[in-house]
């Protein structure tokens, strides 16, 4: 059965990222590119790796089953998917003069807009729920208005994409731009997960992973900026 809510969310993500790449073409390609040129294959690779990761963690017996594999609504592990997509983007720079990390950093804001738009399209699927609130959203079949956490997460991710783009323009090292992008999405996801309804106590797997990724990416950003500042000082010293 096709999940039209999921399909609509993907279409929204595609449209938003297409608009973003049209407004700000990445400077790591020889000619103007579209989202399908640069993110279609990495996105597909991310989807496959993320889905297989979920099956490996939740139901390893189902890994060989195509029917289980294609039910992506049942879960796509977010961070393995992001890692696979980033590796594919880096791999695409192998026959060019562009450094692989520079290519990833140039596309990071576009990918963040895609993620933000996907989250903000939560109205089409089951992703908007938050704590009960006297305002905003009453999901179908429920009697209590709820805070649309998905929309807030989406708006924050798009805001973070703008910020990451500015950091790139200000001359931050590519590695620091990439790790800042990862840290900001991890932070947004970690904070958003606090309000998402869940079954049972404790943190969800994605919540725990996001916290760890945020810390690691934050530390990496700081370390790369320090190294960059040090090398700049050394070059400036006669």
């Amino acid at each position: 059965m096709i999940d039209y809510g999921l399909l609509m969310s993907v279409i929204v993500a595609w449209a938003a990222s297409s608009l973003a790449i049209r407004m700000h073409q990445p400077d790591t390609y020889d000619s103007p590119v579209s989202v399908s040129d640069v993110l279609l294959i990495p996105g597909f690779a991310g989807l496959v790796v993320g889905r297989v990761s979920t099956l490996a963690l939740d139901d390893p017996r189902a890994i060989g089953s195509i029917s289980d594999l294609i039910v992506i609504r049942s879960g796509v592990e977010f961070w393995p998917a992001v890692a696979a997509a980033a590796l594919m983007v880096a791999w695409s720079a192998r026959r060019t003069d562009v450094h692989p990390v520079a290519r990833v950093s140039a596309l990071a804001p576009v990918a963040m807009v895609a993620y933000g738009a996907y989250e903000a399209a939560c109205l089409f699927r089951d992703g908007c729920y938050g704590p009960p609130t006297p305002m905003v959203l009453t999901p179908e079949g429920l009697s209590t208005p709820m805070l649309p956490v998905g929309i807030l997460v989406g708006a924050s991710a798009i805001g973070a994409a703008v910020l990451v783009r500015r950091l790139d323009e200000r001359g931050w090292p590519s590695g620091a731009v990439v790790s800042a992008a990862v840290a900001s999405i991890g932070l947004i996801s970690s904070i958003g997960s606090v309000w998402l309804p869940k079954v049972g106590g404790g943190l969800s797997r994605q919540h725990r992973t996001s916290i760890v990724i945020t810390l690691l990416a934050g530390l990496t950003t700081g370390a790369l900026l320090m190294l960059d500042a040090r090398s700049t000082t050394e070059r400036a010293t006669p």
Partner: protein
Amino acid sequence: MLVGQLGRPVIVNVWASWCAPCRTEMPLLQRAAETYADRVVILGVASNDSPEAAQEFLDDFGLTYPNVFDVSSEIRTELAVTAYPTTYVFGADGRLQVTIAGGISEQRLAAVIENALR
């Protein structure tokens, strides 16, 4: 079976062993059954399936909440099941609150249960 549960919300999950989304949501339903043990009843209904395959499926997951087999397809007809899985949420007053056709996410399951408990 449902009549005996009046006073507590009841979640009825209709599944079949050949349905992939059914497989993936079983651990979630088991967790919900454990978490809301005294406050919510979770009931599985194996439907449009062979009893042997359904039993094997249950054994695979080690489910502890009650599951019944819809031998005569009476439950499927009564609930007008059109997709697998389908989850029905009945309030404590026995009224059907929401029907979710297709796989259910953790967020939605938690939200409908909390809503039914209010």
